[in-house]
């Protein structure tokens, strides 16, 4: 039973299109994240949600819109895709909350987005 699952695993699309990636965690964690990993393997945080509330937005273009319908789900919608959006997007969750240490992160398997 996968702890953090994200779909789809692979996404190939044309520039200008809109796409979504979904993430679900069954660990009962309060905090969920989206990270972007580029071709050089740098892992950069994009967003963080705690109990459905956005707490971190790392100056990501507003073409990226996260949505958390409940604390177990965090989806990522991307409008008007650009070539530079090609990357692997990782969803993650942790037990850490607003006043506690950022706990161990549990990552999903990643969604590889290729924009042509």
């Amino acid at each position, binding site marked *: 039973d996968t702890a953090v699952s994200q779909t789809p695993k692979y996404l190939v699309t044309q520039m200008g299109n809109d796409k979504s990636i979904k993430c679900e965690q069954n660990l009962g964690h309060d905090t969920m994240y989206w990270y972007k990993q580029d071709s050089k393997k740098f892992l950069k*945080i994009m967003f963080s949600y705690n109990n459905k509330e956005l707490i971190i937005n790392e100056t990501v273009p507003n073409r990226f819109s996260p949505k958390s319908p409940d604390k177990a789900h965090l989806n990522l919608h991307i409008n008007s895709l650009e070539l530079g959006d090609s990357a692997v997007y990782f969803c993650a969750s942790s037990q*850490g909350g607003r006043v506690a*240490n950022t706990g161990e992160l549990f*990552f999903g398997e*990643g969604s590889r987005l290729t924009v042509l």
Partner: protein
Amino acid sequence: GQQVMQIPQYQHVQEGEDFTTYCNSSTTLSNIQWYKQRPGGHPVFLIQLVKSGEVKKQKRLTFQFGEAKKNSSLHITATQTTDVGTYFCADGNFGNEKLTFGTGTRLTIIP
């Protein structure tokens, strides 16, 4: 902004040799976490260090946190092919709910 640099960026070693990656921060770290990412996989948590000067071991892996809490290291003794992957340190910031990942060290093993 805060940066967490890792060196080296790449390391190729013969199987059986030792390997060390270093993590350096421009600011004092609240705590440090280490992750391993196998090729094609996702980052997997290895350990967290919190105290100044802390040393923890996991079998052939030794993790250290600097006295000033501005650096950390991961040392692998007698590498095996299963150690292949990218090793990341990450700064867990108390009260900030985000993990800032280091630049990573990619380890390849020559059998």
